[in-house]
């Protein structure tokens, strides 16, 4: 009996020792564990852990408003997570601060990404993250409200002018707001505006990183936004994009822009999808925006973290995540054609990719966002003329580049 007890204790100690010998990789994610992508990622991580038994991955989910700040603060305190899900706009700052490690990709791997997607994580000739979530945006429009306002319902607005005319008619004839504008002090205020800015041929920086914000095209786009605000939901400054989703689902706004995931959040609305309408000086376009998995430097587990990041983003696994999240597919895989055939509503999101422009990369991306949001908010509230707001923002952006 004593021998058996001793043996059992020995086995238990061995198991405990083996468990202790595992190295933990902390992985900070944005969102919640109830997100549709979370179980898919958990499944992939479990597979990787099985193949790498000396490692254990500790996933931590934080709300969108806090996850990036949390990961960066931890890194600043020299207590970085092994890897984190970050907006790609942060990679330039993190790379410049020597906090993340570059990712080496073979030519074959690079070729499997859309070039514009890879551009969102590239600077100084290197890639600094693995794109994880990709979105293009489209115009969602409520066909029933259009019909009620006496507007055509065979296709949605194609130009800025048509958007304004439809928004005005809907506001005047149906009681619903013509358009949902997000203008809160949040990142998607800038992102949503960039869709319209790019669709009018505007830009924020050129290929050399020089600020090009003070342009006729940008003034036109912001003037359009100011005009559109007259027919938008009351108090756009109180709304970020997520708060517009329930308004669209309830028929309180007739139009708004959103990514592919908006289809699952539209409730019972009879809606149509169009590419972002074209401005007087441009063609239909969209903001190409990615979030990426970055690997932090100085954790001692960089190699394993890179291996995990690559494992999670292989074309097939990434495609599985894209489909679960309703994200625009990042990598060129055969399955893309299948999902379009099965669900044609994907078309506008995928067709928009070659027309789009990337999110501008600046080291102090928060200050860039603040400068642009200030311009948008001041025009949407009617406090400042578009021309003056653009000029002020351009000066602030140029200061950031100095």
């Amino acid at each position: 009996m004593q021998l058996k007890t001793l043996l059992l204790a020995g086995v238990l100690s061995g198991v405990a020792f083996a468990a202790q010998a595992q190295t933990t990789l902390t992985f900070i994610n944005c969102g919640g564990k109830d997100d549709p992508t979370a179980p898919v990622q958990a499944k992939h991580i479990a597979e990787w852990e099985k193949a790498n038994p000396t490692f254990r991955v500790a996933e931590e989910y934080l709300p969108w408003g806090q996850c990036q700040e949390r990961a960066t603060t931890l890194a600043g305190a020299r207590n970085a997570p092994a890897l984190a899900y970050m907006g790609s706009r942060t990679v330039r700052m993190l790379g410049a601060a020597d906090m993340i490690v570059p990712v080496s990709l073979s030519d074959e791997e690079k070729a499997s990404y859309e070039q514009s997607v890879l551009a969102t994580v590239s600077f100084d000739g290197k890639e600094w993250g693995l794109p994880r979530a990709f979105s293009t945006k489209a115009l969602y429009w409520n066909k029933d409200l259009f019909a009620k306002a006496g507007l055509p319902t065979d296709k949605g607005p194609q130009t800025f002018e048509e958007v304004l005319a439809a928004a005005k008619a809907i506001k005047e004839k149906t009681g619903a707001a013509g358009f949902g504008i997000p203008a809160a002090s949040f990142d998607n205020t800038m992102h949503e505006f960039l869709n319209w800015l790019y669709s009018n041929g505007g830009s924020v920086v050129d290929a050399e990183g020089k600020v090009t914000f003070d342009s006729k095209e940008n003034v036109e786009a912001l003037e359009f936004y100011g005009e559109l605000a007259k027919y938008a939901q009351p108090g756009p400054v109180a709304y970020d994009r997520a708060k517009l989703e329930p308004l669209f689902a309830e028929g309180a706004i007739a139009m708004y822009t959103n990514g592919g995931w908006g289809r699952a959040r539209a409730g019972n609305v009879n809606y149509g999808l169009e590419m972002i309408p074209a401005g007087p000086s441009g063609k239909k376009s969209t903001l190409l925006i990615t979030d990426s998995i970055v690997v932090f430097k100085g954790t001692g587990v960089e190699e394993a973290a890179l291996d995990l990041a690559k494992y999670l983003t292989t074309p097939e696994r990434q495609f599985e995540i894209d489909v679960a999240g309703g994200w625009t597919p990042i990598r060129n895989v055969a399955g893309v054609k299948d999902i379009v055939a099965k669900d044609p509503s994907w078309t506008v999101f995928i067709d928009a990719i070659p027309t789009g422009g990337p999110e501008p990369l600046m080291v102090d991306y928060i200050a860039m966002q603040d400068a642009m949001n200030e311009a948008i908010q001041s025009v949407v509230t009617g406090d400042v003329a578009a021309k003056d707001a653009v000029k002020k923002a351009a000066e602030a952006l140029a200061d950031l580049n100095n």
Partner: protein
Amino acid sequence: MTRRRDLFPYLLLLPALALTLAIVAWPLAETFRLSFTDASMKPVTTYVGFANYAKIFRSGFEEIIGRTLLWASLSVSLKILLGLLVAVLLNAAVPGRALFRILVMPPWIVPIAIGVFMWSWMYNGQFGMISGLLQRFGLISEPFEFMAYGTSSFIATVVTDVWIGVPLVSLYFLAAMQGISKELYEAAWVDGASRLYRFRRVTLPLLLPSIATMALLSAIWTFNSFDIIWILTEGGPRGATTTMIIDTYKTAISRFRYGEGAARAVLILLFLSAFTSVYVYLLLRLTRKGGTHD
């Protein structure tokens, strides 16, 4: 032996002194040091002299100081006035007084974040109670988003701060009121003093030191109040609710400009120290006057 005995009390103080140095003095000294550097996410930090301080005043910080003073003074005044009123009512000999004393507590008991989220929903134009009631009574024709406009956001944050702060203030005043000798009231009553006169000539003068102390504490807490504004508005819209503490957080934590953030924190410290010194001086004078009250 005597020398040893002399040192003993100081040895006993050592742990407390070490703790104070570790959690107060060292962070404070580090903040001062950082404020003279360009500390950020960059791996190398450089000494920049007073550049961070100069930059603060070039960025319109005076406006933020003014806003902070307005926000804090409005909020503290309302908390003191309403707290006093509630304390007087709770002190009145009415049936069910104990129940009223319990009912006044929830805003203080409920975790701040939950209380503020509740207000955030009430301020929502589409789904919120306040806008809904105003529409129902015909005072507004369409939903009003309180958080979309500078003035309404500013007022909303003050109202929420007052709602959370009043219970503590009123309980503090209530405790002070119950310490006032009943004989004084009886003597005033015998002399024919009315209820209002008794309040003015007995309650208020004897409460003055408590009012002054609570006002000072409340001013410091309110000045440094972060969570209420951050949850409701994050300092927006367009900076309308950005107080000194919010601006410091945004600079140091959101934008990772630790040096500039530290300079702002030092200014807040100096500001509060000066304010507290003046206040304590006035309080002492007031208390002395109160002591010779006839």
